[in-house]
């Protein structure tokens, strides 16, 4: 309990620091946001009026707290590019990224756990060497190049899907999921490589542990040793891995949405950056960072529940 409390304090501290860093970063950007909105030919009166309206004449801490309270109320101002509330833009594109993340994550779990177990179980045997080599290649391929190859191979050569013809989830959910498979695969493959490598190392570490030998000495069979003893011990590194992977997927989807023209968070972010639509960029950055902070928090709490040895350091 004490640990959770202390971890919660760190969580708040990190959230605070993240928000301050983001706010300051966007505050020092050269260029006047008012000028961006009104253009260079606006009259001085209008500029002054807008400055007051946006609160730009306040001091830095005041502006920070205004901005933060806006964020917390999910009211982050208007997009310059679309002249729409930032949050409605984000909530429109969020489901695409969420589904993409979910499918990639499932693919990663589905493939990396058995492969990691095989590689560890037959350590240094042929199957392990094959898995290691494939792993090495998969972590060396940039996800966007995989995306391009998939578009060419499955889209143009085999015609399994029509590249660029995104199916909206409101219209045809199955078609939408279908369209997401190849992008998800492009995100998943490099991460499967990372996961397999990680799992192999930690499983080998567990299987050579002394307590495993003790378990065998009591008359446990292979399966009992695996389920009753190794599983829970291997769960902790697995949790850490999952936390890491979700962050990687978020990173990957920013690029992959661009490759497959998916109208998700990533594409919104890139188009906002190209347009210098600062309110949208700022909100996206902070929301994504908050999600990551919460994931890390959840992972730490899970680790604490699994392993009672983890205490306040």
């Amino acid at each position, binding site marked *: 309990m004490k640990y959770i409390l202390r971890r919660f304090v760190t969580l708040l501290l990190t959230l605070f620091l993240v928000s301050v860093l983001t706010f300051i970063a966007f505050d020092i950007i050269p260029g006047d946001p008012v000028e961006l909105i009104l253009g260079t030919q606006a009259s001085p009166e209008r500029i002054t009026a807008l400055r007051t309206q946006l609160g730009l004449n306040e001091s830095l801490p005041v502006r920070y707290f205004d901005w933060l309270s806006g964020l917390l109320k999910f009211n982050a101002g208007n997009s310059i590019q679309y002249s729409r509330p930032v949050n409605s833009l984000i909530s429109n594109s969020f489901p695409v990224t969420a589904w993409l993340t979910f499918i990639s994550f499932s693919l990663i779990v589905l493939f990396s756990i058995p492969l990691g177990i095989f590689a560890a179980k037959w350590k240094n045997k042929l199957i392990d060497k094959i898995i290691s080599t494939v792993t090495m290649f998969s972590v*060396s391929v940039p996800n*966007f190049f995989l995306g391009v190859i998939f578009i060419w191979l499955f889209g143009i050569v085999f015609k399994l899907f029509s590249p660029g013809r995104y199916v909206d989830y409101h219209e045809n959910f199955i078609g939408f999921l279908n369209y997401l498979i190849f992008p998800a695969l492009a995100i998943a493959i490099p991460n499967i490589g990372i996961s397999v490598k990680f799992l192999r190392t930690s499983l080998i570490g567990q299987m050579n542990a002394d307590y495993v030998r003790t378990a065998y000495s009591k008359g446990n069979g292979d399966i009992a040793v695996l389920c009753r003893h190794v599983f829970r011990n291997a769960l902790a590194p697995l949790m850490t891995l999952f936390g890491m992977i979700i962050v990687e997927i978020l990173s990957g989807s920013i690029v992959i949405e661009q490759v497959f023209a998916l109208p998700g968070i990533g594409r919104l972010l890139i188009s906002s950056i190209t347009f210098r639509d600062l309110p949208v960029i700022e909100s996206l950055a902070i929301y994504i960072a908050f999600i990551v902070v919460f994931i890390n928090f959840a992972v730490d709490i899970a680790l604490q529940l699994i392993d009672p040895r983890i205490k306040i350091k």
Partner: protein
Amino acid sequence: MNKKNDFDMKLGFFIIGIVISLAVSSFFYTPYDPYTMDISHRFNGVSIKHLLGTDNFGRDIFSRVITGARFTLFVAICTVSSGTLFGIILGLTAGYLGGVADEIIMRIIDAINSFPAILLALVMVTVLNQGKYTIIVALCILFVPSFTRIVRSGTLQYKNNEFVKLAQVIGASPLRIMFVHILPNLYPTLLSAIVVGLSNAILAESGMSYLGLGIQPPIPSWGRMLYEAQTHLFHSPLSAFVPGMFIIITVLGFNFLGEGIRKRLN
């Protein structure tokens, strides 16, 4: 076991050697000018005249790819070395001084780490506005946290060793202890981190360039070449594959080298 490490290392050195010599030779000679467009020769296939064909503007892909290698490697080396430098300074300070300095540095590092890598780079690009060196600064930030962590944990490990205590007794200044006594012990770990960092930097740079936020056209960069070729994938998959393959091969080279070094250290 030993044989295998050496194989990994040799293969890594071999691949990187080829890529670097191609990049260096592009300063002196390229079969064609990488910037000259020649619409009449667009989408040429592989031939003796154009080793790896031509792109949508009729530019020689081989010339562009080896020129691109130059910029990609330049960005990777700059970002990783500056990331390492900052990481060493921050990590040594946090680890050796401990206390408040450690707490402040590590909390900020944690906060920076809360941004997924590519998002952080994108935010930096936005903040810094697009310029020639923006991409280097943006990517440099990505590497500071991991190098800081590595150096910090290494410092903590050596901080209480006898040789450090001895230096303290002799009256060496903290700076001297940090840089002369502790740092050299971390070189092996840093070396493998740097090699892995280089492969990550190449992936990150080409990713940013693919998004149009890295090296700006007309300078050829592998990521941007891939992006431009994607529109013409139907006519000419080759112009997309060549830069893609170059990225894979280079990254693979650094990964093999890193793996070899890591195994040798163990």
